[in-house]
């Protein structure tokens, strides 16, 4: 074989290899994922790959006769073409953009990220060719949309704070909902989020905002050490909500070149959770309160409890009437004073304390004040709680009492019916008999709810016992009620009168045991409460064997309180002077205590008795040399 032939053979082999290699490369290009094409400015294709052939529904070998315009609608093609023009005019050497194949059927449409490069001019013709690559980003966009949807719907406010302390443009839609404002992009986070919360922040929390901003641009380790000082919980007055919402904040640093570049802030509306937590706390507290109330009810002696509850409830109802009605401060104070005493005797310490505080509040700010109303609301809550527990756990079956009441009503009904028949017989009416029967009827009606004041004896004993215990004195009471009866309301008022009189006697009259012994008296003081009834008239007195009345002290207080001038006072007899102890606010006690000291008790007694058209007088008992209170009331017409 000649040298020429060898050369030919060698060249042939090299050519064959190159051809094979080229065909392989073509195969790779044809099957390249995404779109690959060479095209003219008018969209005419010179070559392309399988994906493009599929998109324009043509066999690959015929793709050179097709036009890529088919993939796009008119507007999209104009966009595509504008990118080609930027290259052909030399404005740009490369273009990258995203465009959907919206010229295809809906189910075929995809999103592509197009990259366009110049390919050169076709020979001597004025035809620019472009080399294009299209990456299918449909799935990516779908996932992005899903993420966006998640980002939008997730109930978290997610935003980025940049180095200038401004909110970056990308933030979750929930941020706007939480903050009740929109278009917060590029706005300072301080003005948008922290500033409106200032009113609810303490100085330490205010400083925490400065600490947060100080970490921007700093070392990440600085962020780590300071992050616990950042504002973590804010009360934010959202324009969309009536109440400020509670936001919980989390901060995450975005580090670039080892510096805090941005801070990722996550806002969470915790208002509901806090509300539930508070409710649970309240529930727990209520549980404790309930336990304490049950304990107080249990502590009270069983024979005292029903009476105490009854009397407290009567006074409480009166308090409600006064609070919701005319609102005279003095009346309310006196009622609170009575309630306080009753509660104390029953052993309801919290109720007693609340009454004491309310009394003080009412005296200082008046009955109309918000503080007083607030205090009274505490009393209401406490007593309603105690009462419902008492009714549920301690109240006995009233069936016996109910049966008696029913029998009484039957009897009264019969009486009224007989009277009715009598009056219908107009010719033979004996008005004297009718009058007699009406009087009996009225009496029987009243009698249905009348109570013997002797029912109060266990309570009266408890008043003495408890009061003595409180002031560390010793005393016994002799309560003689002589079958005196009054209705429910009057019984309660009498209890209040006795309560104040007894408290006063023990606090101010009866001496301490050592003093009594030194004075040659029995260390146990004696108190006598005697009642008598004549129809609607009730007479009574209470006397003790204590130290009596200190006329000098009373005079001093009268002057101090400017009730009388010294000259006026000098014209008064001792008996007249004694009566000033019923004057509101005049107490001879040096200290104000829960039992006595404000001069409310005796003034309350006088007011109650005067409501009954009665009177009360204080004097020195001639026998015991202690104080003696004589009173008379007339219940008729009251």
């Amino acid at each position, binding site marked *: 074989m000649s040298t020429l032939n060898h050369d*030919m053979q060698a*060249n*042939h082999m090299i*050519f064959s290899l190159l*051809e094979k290699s*080229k065909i392989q490369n*073509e195969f790779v290009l044809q099957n390249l994922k995404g779109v690959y094409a*060479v095209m003219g400015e008018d969209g005419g294709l*010179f*070559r392309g790959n399988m994906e493009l052939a599929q998109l324009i529904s043509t066999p690959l*070998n*015929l793709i*050179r*006769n097709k036009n890529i315009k088919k993939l796009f609608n008119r507007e999209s093609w104009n966009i595509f073409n504008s990118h080609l023009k930027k290259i052909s005019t030399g404005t740009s050497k490369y273009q990258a953009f995203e465009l959907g194949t919206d010229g295809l059927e809906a189910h075929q449409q995809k999103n592509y990220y197009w990259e366009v490069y110049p390919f*050169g001019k*076709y*020979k*001597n*013709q004025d*035809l620019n*060719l472009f080399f294009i690559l299209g990456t299918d980003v449909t799935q990516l966009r779908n996932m992005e949309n899903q993420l966006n949807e998640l980002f939008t719907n997730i109930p978290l406010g997610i935003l980025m704070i940049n180095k200038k302390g401004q909110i970056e443009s990308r933030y979750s839609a929930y941020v706007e909902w939480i903050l009740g404002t929109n278009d917060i992009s590029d706005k300072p986070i301080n003005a948008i989020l922290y500033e409106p919360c200032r009113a609810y922040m303490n100085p330490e929390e205010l400083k925490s905002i400065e600490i947060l901003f100080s970490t921007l641009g700093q070392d990440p380790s600085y962020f780590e050490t300071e992050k616990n000082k950042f504002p973590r919980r804010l009360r934010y007055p959202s324009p969309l909500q009536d109440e400020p919402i509670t936001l919980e904040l989390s901060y995450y640093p975005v580090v670039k070149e080892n510096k805090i570049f941005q801070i990722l802030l996550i806002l969470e509306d915790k208002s509901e959770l806090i509300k539930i937590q508070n409710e649970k706390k309240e529930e727990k507290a209520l549980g404790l309160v309930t336990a304490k109330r049950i304990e107080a009810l249990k502590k009270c002696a069983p024979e005292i409890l029903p009476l105490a509850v009854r009397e407290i409830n009567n006074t409480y109802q009166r308090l409600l009437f006064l609070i919701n009605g005319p609102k005279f401060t003095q009346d309310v104070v006196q009622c609170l004073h009575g309630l306080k005493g009753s509660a104390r005797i029953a052993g309801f310490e919290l109720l007693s304390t609340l009454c004491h505080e309310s009394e003080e509040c009412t005296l200082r700010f008046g009955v109309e004040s918000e503080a007083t109303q607030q205090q009274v609301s505490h009393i209401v809550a406490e007593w309603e709680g105690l009462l419902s527990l008492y009714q549920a756990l301690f109240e006995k079956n009233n069936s016996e009492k109910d049966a008696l009441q029913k029998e009484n009503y039957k009897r009264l009904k019969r009486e009224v019916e007989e009277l009715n028949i009598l009056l219908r017989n107009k010719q033979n009416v004996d008005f004297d008999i009718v009058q007699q029967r009406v009087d009996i009827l009225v009496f029987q009606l009243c009698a249905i709810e009348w109570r013997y004041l002797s029912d109060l004896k266990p309570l009266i004993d408890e008043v003495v016992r408890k009061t003595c215990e409180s002031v560390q004195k010793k005393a016994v009471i002799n309560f003689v009620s002589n079958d005196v009866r009054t209705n429910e309301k009057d019984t309660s008022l009498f209890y209040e009168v006795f309560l104040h009189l007894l408290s006063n006697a023990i606090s101010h009259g009866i001496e301490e045991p050592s003093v009594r012994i030194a004075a040659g008296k029995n260390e146990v003081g004696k108190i006598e409460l005697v009642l008598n009834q004549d129809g609607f008239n009730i007479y009574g007195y209470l006397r003790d064997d204590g130290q009596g009345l200190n006329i000098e002290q009373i005079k001093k207080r009268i002057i101090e309180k400017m009730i009388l001038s010294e000259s006026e006072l000098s014209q008064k007899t001792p008996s007249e002077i004694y009566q000033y102890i019923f004057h509101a606010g005049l107490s001879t006690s040096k200290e104000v205590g829960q039992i006595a000291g404000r001069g409310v008790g005796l003034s309350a007694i006088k007011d109650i008795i005067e409501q009954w058209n009665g009177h009360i007088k204080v004097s020195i008992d001639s026998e015991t040399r202690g104080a003696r209170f004589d009173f008379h009331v007339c219940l008729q017409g009251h």
Partner: protein
Amino acid sequence: MKNNELAEKLQLLVQVTSEVCLKSLMQNSEIRAEKSDFPHLTPGEWMSLILVSTNQFRIIFKIFFDTDSVKTEIKNINLSKFSESESQNILKDFMKEYCNMTGGYIKTVLDKLDIKAGSSLPVTILGFDDFFFPFANEQNSFERRWCLKGQERAFYCSCYVVATETKNLDRIMNFDPSEIQIVEGDMDLL
């Protein structure tokens, strides 16, 4: 003699040769050469080409084709026993051989006219690759385009001539390309 006159003569030689060779190789007497521009800048998926070179000029003959068109017009090859990809390769090789034959005949004619010529090996590449080939400037390089029409399909061809020297080429100017004939059985293909 001017460059363009030489080029035109040579192009005509190539055109006639291309027609005669294809007719013979495909055993398709219907094939006719017609002067025609390309309907598209890339008138075939594939392109087979061969270079014939002398001291005075260079000729590049290119024929654009789709394998489908070749399959339609060819009369002497039964491809039924081959797979699609095998058939494709056979058809591409066929066209490469056709180029080789055309180049060989041009060389023979030139030889008879006392012009010593060499030819390259034929290659089949993508029709699109024509983009990378030089184009005519009408001073010393010229291009002629025509098509070889069969019964159903057409094959577009081009002849690119670069003329560098026109001296001592009088014989070629007096040559009539229509004299070219192919002796039967002078080919051994497949």
